[in-house]
């Protein structure tokens, strides 16, 4: 017979309150509440579902741009159509040109050219760069604005060497610009600044572009005798014979409109006119004679291109741009990965609800006392909770983000709008970053739940802090500066982790949140949310210590 007075002792070995026991306890709590599991599954499903719906709501690659010339400046899509030369009819026009780096580009300009065999150089004097820009006052009938004299700041006149005359061909060019001095640019995305200042009859500019194998060097001079190198670039696998000559381009003007539902840009094609003379060719130029062609098949910019020659003096007029296609989401210039991830927002709300209840439910049901009895060191109990909810959310969100991106890519390939190409590392950053964003938001919600101890108030505070600034910054009447500051100072800054659109300082565009451009770098924005979460956790730990459960 055993003595009836022997107290029960657990068969489990005794020991210090191991942290992994706390983790195990929190994991058990999370996975055994059907509502929370359902909430996390709903978060993942909503994320993917919204991404699919958003992708289904995309226009075809030709929609919006196809009617370009007739639509006038009121529709932002027209700017793109006029800019990227993809607005014409036909299947080929539905595929915007792609540059050597795989990015969507604009390749639309007036080109006076002839073939160059082997090494050689071309030197020219530019005595003027003038042009036409859309008038500020838009006509009331919504038609295209009238043109008035003026030079688009990024209008370009200069020398270019291209692999061939095909759209998206590799090139190097040295040029004078409307308002940004001399530049050397190559392969659409690269830009090097030369000397400042514009050109006119009193202060002309000499430019020289030299080919030597795969190396191209641009020089500038203000007197034709003293030369300064602007830049040297390498174009890989340049064929023996290239197309070289003079060019003029003038990108579309960008007007900023304050409309009731956010900023929008409109504008219209501009025209640049450059005057070239003292053309000097060195090397083997087999065909003695210049051909003037408009590159790109957009009817609007094509109609603005023309050339005249008078005793070695060339007057070129051109419209369009040689550079990366930009514009962002508002212009619909290709789809971006972040558009496939619009589901982050519903996913975020669901995750915040679950993470908040993960702790507020303990307060409501009095389980908090048990939790703190089992793990009396309160900071560790909180850490265990944060790790579990953060880790589980990260796993679920990563799966959802990967699924969203994969489904978005599939839909893009099966006849949908083209997806802007981005590097593998960027895709990984966006997917991991989205998962991390949701995980940190969950930890933030948990901490605010401890601080406020009320579900409804905590959820509203967290969702309000993360989502509302984003809405105010992207879709409201707030001025640009205020929008930028909202996305620097509030946890909404973290959405910058999803930005894949690069900013090109050499292309005029509205680099604003509404177009998908954030004021902070991806991980810097993410760090803002992280700082909020850490601060909330610190406050929560302190309150847990000071308060009775």
């Amino acid at each position: 017979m055993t003595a009836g007075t022997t107290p029960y002792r657990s068969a489990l070995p005794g020991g210090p309150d191991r942290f992994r026991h706390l983790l195990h306890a929190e994991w058990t709590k999370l996975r055994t509440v059907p509502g929370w599991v359902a909430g996390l599954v709903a978060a993942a499903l909503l994320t993917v579902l919204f991404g699919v719906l958003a992708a289904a709501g995309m226009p075809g690659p030709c929609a919006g741009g196809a009617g370009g010339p007739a639509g006038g400046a009121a529709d932002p899509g027209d700017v793109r159509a006029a800019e990227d030369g993809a607005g014409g009819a036909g299947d080929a026009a539905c595929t915007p040109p792609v540059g050597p780096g795989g990015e969507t580009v604009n390749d639309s300009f007036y080109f006076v050219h002839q073939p160059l065999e082997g090494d050689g150089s071309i030197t020219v004097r530019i005595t003027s760069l003038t042009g036409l820009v859309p008038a500020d006052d838009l006509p009331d009938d919504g038609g295209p604005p009238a043109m008035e004299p003026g030079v688009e700041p990024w209008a370009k006149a200069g020398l270019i060497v291209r692999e061939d005359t095909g759209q998206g061909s590799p090139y190097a060019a040295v040029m004078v610009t409307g308002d940004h001095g001399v530049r050397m640019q190559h392969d659409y995305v690269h830009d090097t600044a030369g000397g400042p200042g514009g050109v006119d009859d009193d202060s002309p500019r000499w430019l020289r572009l030299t080919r030597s194998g795969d190396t191209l060097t641009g020089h500038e001079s203000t007197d034709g005798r003293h030369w300064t190198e602007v830049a040297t670039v390498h174009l890989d696998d340049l064929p023996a014979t290239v197309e070289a000559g003079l060019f003029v381009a003038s990108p579309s003007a960008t007007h900023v409109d304050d409309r009731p539902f956010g900023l929008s840009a409109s504008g219209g094609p501009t025209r640049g006119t450059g005057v070239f003379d003292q053309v000097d060719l060195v090397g083997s130029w087999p065909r003695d004679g210049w051909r003037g062609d408009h590159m790109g098949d957009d009817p609007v910019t094509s109609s603005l291109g023309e050339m005249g020659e008078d005793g070695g003096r060339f007057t070129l007029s051109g419209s369009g741009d040689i550079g990366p296609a930009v514009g962002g989401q508002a212009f619909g210039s290709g789809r971006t990965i972040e558009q496939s991830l619009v589901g982050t927002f519903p996913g975020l709300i669901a995750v915040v609800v679950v993470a908040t209840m993960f702790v507020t439910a303990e307060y409501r049901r009095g389980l908090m006392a048990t939790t703190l009895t089992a793990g009396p060191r309160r900071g560790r109990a909180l850490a265990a909770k944060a790790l579990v909810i953060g880790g589980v959310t990260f796993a679920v969100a990563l799966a959802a983000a990967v699924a969203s991106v994969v489904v978005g890519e599939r839909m893009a390939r099966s006849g949908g709008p083209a997806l802007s190409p981005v590097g593998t590392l960027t895709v990984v950053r966006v997917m991991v970053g989205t998962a991390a964003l949701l995980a940190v938001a969950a930890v933030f919600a948990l901490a605010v739940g401890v601080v406020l101890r009320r579900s409804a108030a905590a959820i509203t505070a967290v969702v309000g802090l993360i989502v509302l600034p984003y809405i105010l910054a992207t879709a409201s009447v707030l001025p640009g500066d205020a929008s930028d500051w909202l996305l620097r100072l509030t946890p909404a800054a973290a959405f910058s982790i999803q930005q894949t659109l690069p900013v090109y300082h050499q292309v005029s565009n509205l680099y604003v949140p509404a177009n998908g451009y954030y004021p902070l770098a991806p991980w810097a924005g993410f760090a803002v949310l992280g700082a909020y979460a850490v601060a909330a956790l610190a406050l929560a730990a302190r309150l847990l210590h000071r308060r009775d459960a």
Partner: protein
Amino acid sequence: MSRRPSPARSPLRDALHAEWTKLRTVAGPAWLLLAAAASTVAVSAASAAAVTHSPGGGQDPTRIALTGVQVGQALVAVLAVVAIGGEYSTRMIGATLTAVPSRTTVLFAKATTVAAAVLAAGLVGVLGSVLAGRLLLPAGGFTPEHGYAPLSLAAGPTLRAAAGSVLYLVLVALLSLGVATAVRDGAAAVGVVLGLLYLFPVTAGLVADPDWERRLRQVSPMEAGLAVQSTVALPDLPVSPWGGVAVLAAWTAAALLSGGLLFHLRDA
């Protein structure tokens, strides 16, 4: 002797009195109402101070001065959700339904009390915002020289924007009440309400197709409802000012109806 209520008193009046007592004697609702009014004024004033007149025109000073409503609505929604969610989380709902067995009466009384409280807070918040806009906007260049009269409720469109904003807050509160009645859980209800309010504008902003974008903005309870704040470029709006309020009212009616129906069909 036990005191019994006189049979002459109507059960609705008793229910209203009971709901008012519940709302009045807990600290939470008072703080929420105060916070809703204060945050509405604060955010409106900050927006009015931040904005500057742009020569291009097309700006809507009235709408800018009422930006705070977008923040105030979240607190108003919490208030409405707590009004019914709190009953379930504390099991008070059993006592409530024992005292007033008619569920329609209970819901009606709750809706009336919440609406009245939000009406009061909304009036304070919106009037404060208009006043802040009147004082702060001229510094940003919204002056008569630029064609902007001082913000005044005597102007028809401004009055409509202000009155519409108060109505908007009341409708959002009732929408939240309906959702919370249907969901019975404060946290989930807040999630659903914030999702309804915020997801439409976010999605519309990321959709590239202009037709889809417009359609989304037309049915969005928040954006359609806030169209009432606009005083310029009305033809450009996806929905007319009062039409937008009607869209929100339809959402509210649907939420209250489904909430009320579930309230009837389910055990508490």
